[in-house]
């Protein structure tokens, strides 16, 4: 197990290195003088020079890249220069992380809780109304990105009917019901697409599994449908579904950016938009790197989960 993880992380190293290069090169993309852009239009020449030094732009590119790698390894990911000058970019990210993590977890939990029963029901009764609903939802869900659903939910449920708090965020320490009430609408806005994708995948792979002979054997033994599906079929059908769940993570991260702005939540997405608008490049770079690492970590978790669902994959 440890060996497997170590092997996979080693295999990811070139990708991680390339990601650091991409995030490093973002600053090189700035047309003209990055220091002037960061310092702002009103800065004096001395202030521009000071910004140049704090960005490290007075040094050679190669030296800077190595210094950047150093800051990544030590975990500071560079220092903010505009939003909160002097604070580590990683500090800012960690401060915003609980919000985004809550949002991501709640929306993925909603997605799984709705999608799995829906997919199972659709697979057991092909062509029934459940199947039709899932089919329709799948076609519609792509067309309903979070920034369309979000404002619509706010308009209907929060502004017109006052059922939910319209915008904002309360930490978990304020109590679970409060935390959840604030999270439900934004999480729903993100979850629609994953519900459809996961539901479709569960249906598809369960249909394949149900055709296999060991399921016929289980049925022939006289086991109940619940037991056949719950104990024998679902684990085998889970692997493609978990893969899709993993693939959804990049889209969910994109969704949180938009949703955090719509619902005025102080999370990583809001931090990304603010740092881009205020030209705080070290924070922008850190965010690109951090989100890519989060995606890679998710992929690793997905690979590890295969061993849980299918014991044949545990060796090797």
């Amino acid at each position, binding site marked *: 197990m440890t060996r497997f993880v170590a092997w996979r992380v080693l295999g990811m190293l070139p990708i991680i290195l*390339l990601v650091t290069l991409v995030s490093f090169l*973002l600053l090189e*993309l700035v047309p003209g003088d990055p220091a002037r852009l960061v310092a702002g239009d009103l800065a004096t020449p001395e202030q521009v020079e000071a910004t140049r030094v704090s960005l490290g732009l007075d040094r050679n590119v190669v030296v800077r890249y190595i210094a950047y790698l150093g800051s990544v390894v030590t975990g500071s990911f560079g220092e903010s220069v505009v939003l909160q000058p002097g604070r580590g970019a990683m500090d800012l990210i960690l401060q915003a992380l609980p919000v985004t993590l809550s949002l991501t977890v709640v929306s993925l939990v909603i997605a799984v809780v709705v999608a799995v029963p829906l997919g199972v029901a659709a697979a057991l009764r092909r062509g029934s109304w459940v199947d039709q609903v899932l089919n329709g939802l799948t076609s519609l869900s792509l067309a*309903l*990105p979070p920034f369309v659903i979000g*404002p619509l939910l706010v*308009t209907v449920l929060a502004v017109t009917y006052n059922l939910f708090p319209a915008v904002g965020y309360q930490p978990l320490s304020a109590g679970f019901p409060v935390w959840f009430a604030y999270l439900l609408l934004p999480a729903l806005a993100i979850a629609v697409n994953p519900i459809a994708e996961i539901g479709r995948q569960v249906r598809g792979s369960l249909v394949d599994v149900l055709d296999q002979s060991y399921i016929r054997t289980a049925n022939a033994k006289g086991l109940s449908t619940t037991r056949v599906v719950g104990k024998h079929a679902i684990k085998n059908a889970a692997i493609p579904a978990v893969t899709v769940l993993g693939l959804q993570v990049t889209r969910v991260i*994109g969704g949180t950016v938009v949703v955090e702005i719509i619902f005025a939540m102080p999370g990583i997405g809001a931090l990304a938009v603010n740092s881009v608008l205020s030209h705080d490049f070290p924070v922008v770079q850190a965010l690109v790197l951090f*989100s890519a690492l989060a995606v890679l970590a998710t992929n690793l978790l997905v690979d590890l989960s295969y061993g849980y669902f299918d014991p044949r994959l545990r060796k090797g």
Partner: protein
Amino acid sequence: MTTTIEPPRAGGAPVRSTPHRARFRTARMLLSERRTRVVLALLVLLVLVAFVGPLLSPYGSNEQDLLGRLQPPSGAHWLGTDSLGRDILTLVLHGTRLSLLAGLLAVGTAVVLGTPAGLLAGYRAGPFGAITNTVSDTLLALPPLVLALAVVGAYGGGVVPAMLAVGITLSPRFYRVARSVAATVSKDAFVEAARSIGCSTTRILTRHVFANAVAPIVVQVTFSIGLAIIAEASLSFLGVGAAPPSVSLGTMARDAFTHIREAAFPIFPPCIVIAVIVFLFSSLGDGLRDAVVSGGRRT
């Protein structure tokens, strides 16, 4: 020079046919379902409306009427006016055009970057493939919206840099499709035959291998355009996409959402139009994918 050896698997229809039939075989296979043809017709209609509509509108996209702001739909303004008193129908038409162009730019970038690399990597195993695989995996790890945000932050606002960034993150899709087709086809007899009569690698890839990849790439294009259109609207919604003179459905949704407590209606037109555009593209993609899987034979 030599006669082109038709790839036998491109159609699935009878292999021997007249040259004219052969030319449009892929197109006919893709459009064999009636539902797909209907969706395509609706999309053509949408494109026409988006490009001709703005010319027919009596209002300009920046014609403000501050006394008549946030009006409900009326005879003069069929979809009402926004917070600056601009005619929402006119804005929707302009926004639709921008969405379509942005989608085309992003997906064009992705196809141009991904396809040749994928064809070559699939046709020839070796160090090139190893490098492009790593690059493709890296791009897949970068959330498109986050990268586009960062590029816009570095390069300055505007739809073009944002869509180029989105195109880069979409390119692994085309790389993977092209690679898998090239890897399968390169073992086929017709590729060996082409090689034996002295065709260059470029010719084999462009004339023979690419012909087999066209159908799956077209499928991927339709899905990707939907994603790119959503990305453009999301970025504009966040205020880092389309800049003021140009009108995006995303900026319209943003504007309507800011004034939601004054008037709820303006939020609906841009959101519904985006949903319709993306729905049409994804249904087209579904139809085309089914056609590729079934090889154009009716089920």
